[in-house]
């Protein structure tokens, strides 16, 4: 019951290879079309990106990213490449409590409020102007990233008020911590 009206001839091996491709295609297409929402949840680049852009709104997401070593590594690379300015780790000889961290691109200074109630002012002095408005100061301390929203920059200076329990106080005093601005 066959007709040869549309007979096409080709190499057997090649046809077999194409058969594999077609079967694979159907398997993929079927599994994608049957997507019933019960699939594994995987963090993707878009998640890393929204965590980096809006850290305040994604505290849980950032925690989830940093729990997984592979995602943490990706997040680290992304944040480093997003930095407009960065300040590498300080020379280890620095004393226990620094009040100033200097860098080629910006300096940080931490001043306690004279009210002595545990409030600190972090003063960020940028040495160069940028085209975009800096949004965040962030830092890598003990292998995890933390973010602080920057106040409007005036004459290259921004200032953030923090409480003494804020993790930036420890980071500031740790020469190994790295700071970035984006």
């Amino acid at each position, binding site marked *: 019951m066959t007709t040869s009206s549309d007979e096409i001839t080709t190499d057997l*091996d090649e046809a077999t290879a194409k058969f594999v491709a077609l079967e694979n295609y159907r398997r993929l297409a079927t599994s994608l079309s049957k997507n019933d929402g019960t699939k594994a949840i995987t963090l993707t680049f878009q998640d890393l990106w929204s965590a980096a852009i809006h850290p305040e709104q994604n505290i849980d997401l950032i925690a989830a990213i940093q729990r997984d070593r592979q995602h943490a590594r990706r997040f680290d690379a992304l944040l480093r490449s997003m930095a407009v300015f960065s300040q590498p780790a300080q020379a280890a000889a620095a004393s226990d409590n620094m009040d100033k961290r200097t860098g080629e691109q910006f300096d940080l200074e931490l001043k306690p409020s004279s009210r002595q109630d545990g409030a600190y002012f972090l003063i960020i002095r940028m040495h160069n102007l940028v085209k975009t408005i800096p949004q965040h100061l962030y830092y890598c301390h003990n292998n995890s990233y933390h973010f602080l929203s920057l106040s409007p920059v005036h004459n290259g200076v921004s200032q953030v008020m923090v409480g003494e329990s804020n993790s930036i106080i420890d980071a500031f005093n740790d020469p190994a911590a790295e700071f970035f601005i984006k």
Partner: protein
Amino acid sequence: MSNVSYKLLHKLALQDDGPSNTLQALLTSTLETTTADGRPRHSEQAQQNLIKVIASHSYAKVIFPLCHFMVVAAQRKIPLYYWFTMTQPMTASSLASSLRSASDQISPDNHTDMKNQLVITIARGNYTFDVNLSHIAKHSALFDLIMEIIGYEGLEILYNKLAYAENRHEIASVSNDLARGIYQFLKDHFPTASTEKKARFMHDFLAKCTGQNASISTSDINDSLIIDFWLEFSLDAQSKFRLFSNCAHSWVTYRQAIRLAASNRFQKGASLDALNEQGVAEISRIDQNAAQVIFDEIAEGPSSTAKLRQINPSILKTVKLVNATEFDHLAELIKFGNEGHTLVLTILRLLTFAPVQARLVEASRKRKMQASAMHSLADDDAYSHVFDHINTLTDTIRGLTEAAAFSLYLAQSSTFIYAAVPLANTQEQKELTNARTRIRASLTKPMDEIILAEKISAELLKKLPQIMPVFFAQLKQARKKYRRKGLGKLPIEDSNSWISELTTGIEVLSEMATHLNRLTSTYLANENPHTKQKTLKSCFAEDRDIFFKQFRQIYGQAS
């Protein structure tokens, strides 16, 4: 054949291993990514290309030009993350404008020639290459998946390396690194070993049947080959060919693969010539063509299925055309695509014996014997019944098409003219054309073309019973005979979606009718008294012996 058996068959067919959950999640999120304003980030074609490239393991060919694109981008000091966070969808022109705005900011690069917006020519030392942004855009989804697989940190290292790549060799080495990474990942997340094993069995079987000949043609895969193959491989409990339906569908796919390979071989010849030139660009152009061929070929089969899905009774809102049972039967027949009419006997076997086998499988799983499964096929005219069944289905579809057309007529919708008129006989179609010419000629004043067309349609609809009396009577008859929800009566509300569902319905139903027609007419054409064509009855009797004997061997004597 009961509807339950179809569902059972379908369930059994899906037992092949798919991609891992991780890959599935990555693919889904890549395909569903949108820009901030909600537009899809990747074009429909780029989405399709991603699946095709993975299925055919042809990513290396795509990664190579992609690396050249990354050379251009990295040299312009565009951060890698930029490409994955663009506010615009990944089109050739959005890529071009991103590159342009970056090159405005840095010093003009003497080696770069933006001779035409979408093709960028770069010279590195004495290596000159073209980057075709349309090609990159067509594979944008793969770019995303590569990043997810390799990781941002890994890809960034390679990206920065590409910024300083000095020659073809260095770019190729990065390209190979990437391809290796993807290969490793897919090995774990999309194992193809079982498909390859299947393919090898089929390959060896074919080689044996065709006498170790290295070439193969579509006609080699015929009804008898398929049954012989099944008889040989279904006895092995580990075999993927235990079910006759799997076997039949695999061979249909193999026929499509032959067509695909034949068209690609032609392309390959062309690209080998191109290698002698200095044309990497040429290769990428050919790649694109080849990718297009894959697309068209693969799309051919599923597209009928995709079309059919448009008239799925659970999707249509304002009208019901085919019912659920008819829909499932149609889906089963349409699966054969363009191979169907040459494999009519296989279709008969599939429709008759596959449900029996499905019930046997189900029974053996539940560890109870179902002796009745095979007794239900006592009727000697089973194949004729299948034919009758297909014919009835064809009639129903034709009737539904006409009833739907009559509904469009009732709505006095101008879509009637192009959707329904092709159903009429040629004589009456000619009458309609004449009537149209007459109306046009009777107009004295010049008029806007769109308004004119509407006017003519309205006029034609009004006079339809006079112009096309036979066709009109036929439609009216169909309306009486085929009463389905929403047919033959103007709806109270949402008449626009009603009209659009009817219009699509007519189009899809006509195509399905053509398909079914082709199946039955091929058979009738072959039932030539001069050949020793067996009658359906004897054919069935013979097949029943074969299948039942095999079933007993597979599932035990008790069945």
